[in-house]
């Protein structure tokens, strides 16, 4: 089973709580402002994400979701992330 971690950039209020609770230090606050004027969280080190959903649990805005995806799609996404 593979997973995809998604942050709703425009829904995030940049409170930083997810950053403070991530056990793998994956998350950081971006320096790119979103449509509401907040600096949202993003996965700085997505390859370290273990999809524990602790960030989701802490987030007051349900801005972070984790979905199941097929293995190939996960591998594809990993490649894309590394290219960015």
């Amino acid at each position: 089973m593979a997973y995809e971690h998604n942050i709703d950039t425009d829904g995030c209020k940049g409170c930083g709580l997810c950053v403070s609770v991530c056990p793998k230090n994956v998350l950081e606050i971006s320096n790119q402002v979103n449509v509401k004027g907040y600096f949202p969280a993003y996965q700085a080190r997505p390859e370290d994400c273990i999809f524990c959903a602790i960030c989701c649990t802490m987030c007051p805005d349900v801005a972070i979701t984790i979905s199941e995806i097929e293995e190939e799609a996960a591998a594809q996404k990993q490649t894309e992330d590394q290219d960015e």
Partner: protein
Amino acid sequence: MGKTFQRPEALADTTTHYCPGCTHGVAHRLVAEVIDELGIRGRTVGIAPVGCAVLMYNYFTFDFQEAAHGRAPAMATGIKRVRPDLVVFTYQGDGDLASIGLSEIVHAANRGEKFTTIFINNAVYGMTGGQMAPTTMPEQRTTTSPFGRKTDYTGMPIKVAELLAALTTPGYITRQTLISPKYINRSKKAIKKAFQYQLENRCFSLVELISTCPTNWGMTPIDALKWAEDKMLPYFKLGDYKLPEEN
């Protein structure tokens, strides 16, 4: 390893007006998750308070009523008595429940009304801009206690869970907190237990949730979690204060 995480169906797909880092959002989500898991969205009626959560009806996808300040337990009583098959909950803050509405919650609990109350204790009046609440900590500065709350002038913070637990009518009274994922998970269990007691038509249930108010405490969301842990938890001790089995 890993798990999925999605927005519950009972929670509307919209952004909220709450401040960044405000734990109202967490409490809302937990209630929605429990409602989804118990499959009761079609027969739940929520009652919104006056406070920051006055617009909470915009954030849920089931029937809602809006109460006057403090009166939600009376409205819940009205609904539950005439439609006992509906699942009814109130969601109230410090002013709503512990100040103007103290009579209503005490009497509803004492009569053993079979609804559930989620009580958000963040030691301040948020919506109106940060005034002192009955739950404000000693020496805590608020806009109406600018030199810090003086307990020889305004008394000590009210411990709602203990107060309601002192009533002899059976009930489920518990205090939890939202200040970390571990505690959030425990809070969800407590909320689910509360709704389950209601589904059994067993008793009144209240889940007090020690929460943060970064904006009116004048600190960052992360610092607010710390302040709640250091200053509030030693006084507002967590745990089950009453279980219906005890009586």
